[in-house]
């Protein structure tokens, strides 16, 4: 299992039946592959659909039905199409149960930076600030390190996406839960010792007596 699949499988375990969930583009979008249809979960694409479905069969794509990355999608039975005001009303009004987003950095306060690298990459925040501010639960799905550099830091050096503390960080090495006391190490990836996680993290982690392996 590669790192992305491991992260997506572990994040999928956070999703409960009947939830309304928004998945970011890229790695987070893989989570849908590991959520069984019978759970009755509705995925939202913020450009205007509740009940996002799989890619349509070849030749069946319709330009009126795309996801937030502009890719062709389908819709599941019970889906609803909505305009952007309704879509962000769901997000900002506390009606979205969970969002899963990628991250550039997360810090000891549980703050996320994921929209800008000054001087290098200024794509714009899109819906990320609204999602982190408004969703009931915010799960960050990301690689633990980028090009050898830790992404979980004492304090984010990149511009923050929101002041809100995220709910959970899932990486290819660990599951970490930000709390009042700091970052709690909750789980480790199969075969990964705690020492390896500490070495790949520049933030201080609180390590309980036992850190179980992820059950994938």
């Amino acid at each position, binding site marked *: 299992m590669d790192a992305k699949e491991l992260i997506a499988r572990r994040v999928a375990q956070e999703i409960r039946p009947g939830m309304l969930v928004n998945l970011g583009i890229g790695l987070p979008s893989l989570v849908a592959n590991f959520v069984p249809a019978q759970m009755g979960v509705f995925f939202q*694409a*913020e*450009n*205007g*659909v509740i009940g996002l479905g799989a890619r349509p069969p070849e030749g069946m794509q*319709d*330009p*009126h*039905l*795309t*996801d*937030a*990355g*502009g890719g062709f999608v389908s*819709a599941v039975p019970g889906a609803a*199409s*909505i*305009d*952007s*005001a309704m879509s*962000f009303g769901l*997000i*900002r009004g506390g009606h979205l149960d969970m969002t899963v987003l990628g991250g550039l950095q997360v810090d000891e306060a549980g703050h996320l930076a994921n929209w*800008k690298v000054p001087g290098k*990459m*200024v*794509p*714009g*925040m*899109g*819906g*990320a*600030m*609204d999602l982190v*501010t*408004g969703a009931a639960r915010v799960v960050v799905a990301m690689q633990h390190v980028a090009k050898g550099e830790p992404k979980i830091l004492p304090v984010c050096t990149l*511009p*923050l*996406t*929101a*002041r809100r503390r995220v709910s959970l960080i899932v990486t290819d090495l660990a599951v970490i839960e930000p709390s009042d006391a700091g970052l709690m190490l909750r789980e480790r990836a199969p075969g990964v010792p705690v020492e390896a996680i500490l070495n790949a993290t520049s933030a201080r982690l609180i390590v309980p007596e036992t850190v179980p392996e992820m059950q994938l």
Partner: protein
Amino acid sequence: MKGALSPQAAAELIPDGASLIIGGFMAVGSPQSLIDALVARRARGLTVIANDTAMPGKGIGKLISAGAVTRLIASHIGLNPETQARMIAGDIDVELCPQGTLIERIRAGGMGLGGVLTPTGLGTEVEDGKQVIEVDGQRFLLETPLRADFALIGAWQADYVGNLCYMLTAQNFNPMAALAGRTVIAEPESIVPVGVIAPDSVKTPGVLVDHLLVRPAH
């Protein structure tokens, strides 16, 4: 509704330097012929308010590539490297705005509200230079309303009085944009007799629409 226009005639109505709110999300639901006509008439100095600038060669991306836009308010330009390059070169003044805040600012403009109070952006760069207002102990950013000289709408169907309905994710910013333009020009994919669009299916009432674009058959 004042009547139907060719894309060329509509583009002539829009002077250089005008402000435009344009519907669409990654070009889905954008008024494509109208954009093509603005490019063809070599429009200049436009202010564009829209979710994104799609990508080069698509939707609003064509206006960017043509050098028609000097000011942009959008939530995302990450998939159009030309917009980023022109921003860095100083050719386009770009204001980035969270997507939910952007649609609410357009809604506020269109509905006559003095602004929007939202926690989105608090404690981030988005807060810079903005007023923070406390309501019942909770802090909010004051985000100001947006209006424009023209709203350019992409719709699925229109009827003869200008009632509009939209298809799936092609509605996005369009219904709110139609409220916030002083002149509203809608480009439907088909025009049908009055009555074909059931009253309950109308998302933009025709009273908001000034002009429809004629279909290419004309």
